[in-house]
């Protein structure tokens, strides 16, 4: 009896399932984001201290959250590759890196644009901001390391090791605002500190962007599977033509 992960480990089965799921996940994410934007711009009140600038929170917090979640996904996938040799784990890790980098970049830019009117500066080298910048460089490092090694299997393994070593950045980012005295506010607790009139649009925005993230990850995984098929078929075509030329020379 195969488990769910064993059944999904087949790339052809994954392509079939993801091909059916992808439009629905993407469309649902788009609807949630659109509804969140309606709430943000037409319903949610201004903050009593920050005024309308608090609207940046509705995109900054989901971006920062997904920046970390993408790295957690890479770490889990890397573990799956190194320990269980799951055929799709490396595909998942490779696909998540540029998406995580994009969300980290978005979190850095939106945070900077939020910081200037609130703190009086775009950037400060405090623990939270610096650790998120390091996360961005870590993503770039994973992408660069993988693309610098031609052997796909070796590249996957070395990138997985780096990803697992780098996972230490996640608790540093999470607890940086508690461990050190930072300019950045403490973590947004969805259940207690945010007023419901702002919490609801924030939660809907977070769900919408998360669905978008999963749709993008699924699409990137599909692209990677196709790329590997193209590579394998190109190699087999080259080998076939070499065999033909060798047999022609022999005759």
């Amino acid at each position, binding site marked *: 009896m195969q488990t769910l992960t064993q059944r999904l480990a087949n790339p*052809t089965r994954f*392509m*079939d399932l993801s091909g059916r799921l992808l439009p629905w996940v993407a469309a649902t994410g788009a609807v949630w984001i659109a509804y969140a934007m309606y709430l943000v711009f037409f319903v949610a009140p201004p903050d009593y201290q920050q*005024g*309308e*600038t608090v*609207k*940046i929170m509705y*995109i*900054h917090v989901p*971006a920062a959250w997904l920046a970390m979640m993408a790295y957690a996904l890479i770490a889990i996938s890397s573990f799956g590759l190194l320990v269980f040799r799951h055929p799709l784990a490396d595909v998942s890790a490779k696909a998540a890196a*540029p*998406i995580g980098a*994009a*969300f980290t*970049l*978005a979190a850095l*830019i*939106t945070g900077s*644009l*939020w910081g*200037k*009117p609130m703190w009086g500066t775009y950037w400060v080298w405090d623990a939270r901001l610096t650790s998120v910048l390091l996360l961005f460089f870590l993503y770039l490092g994973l992408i660069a390391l993988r693309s610098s090694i031609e052997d796909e299997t070796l590249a996957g393994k070395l990138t997985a090791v780096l990803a697992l070593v780098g996972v230490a950045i996640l608790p540093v980012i999470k607890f940086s605002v508690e461990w050190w005295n930072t300019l950045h506010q403490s973590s947004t607790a969805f259940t207690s500190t945010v007023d419901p009139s702002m919490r609801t649009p924030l939660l809907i925005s977070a769900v919408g962007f998360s669905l*978008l993230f999963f749709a*993008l990850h699924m*699409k*990137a995984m*599909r*692209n990677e599977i*196709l*790329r590997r*098929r*193209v590579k*394998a*078929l*190109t190699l*087999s*075509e080259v080998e*076939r033509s070499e065999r033909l030329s060798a047999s022609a020379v022999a005759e």
Partner: protein
Amino acid sequence: MDPVPHTAFIIAAYVAMAVVLAGLIAWLLFDGWRQARALEALEARGVKRRSAKDGAS
């Protein structure tokens, strides 16, 4: 006078988010299209995967 304080920062943040995500989506769609065309070209030359030769998906 700015009717809402810091409007430019709010707009810039949303535009930046939209540009980053639009760029990511466009790159993924283009990459998928490019790989699909490359696979079609190979199959048109008679280079097929074993599962495709066997008639499976």
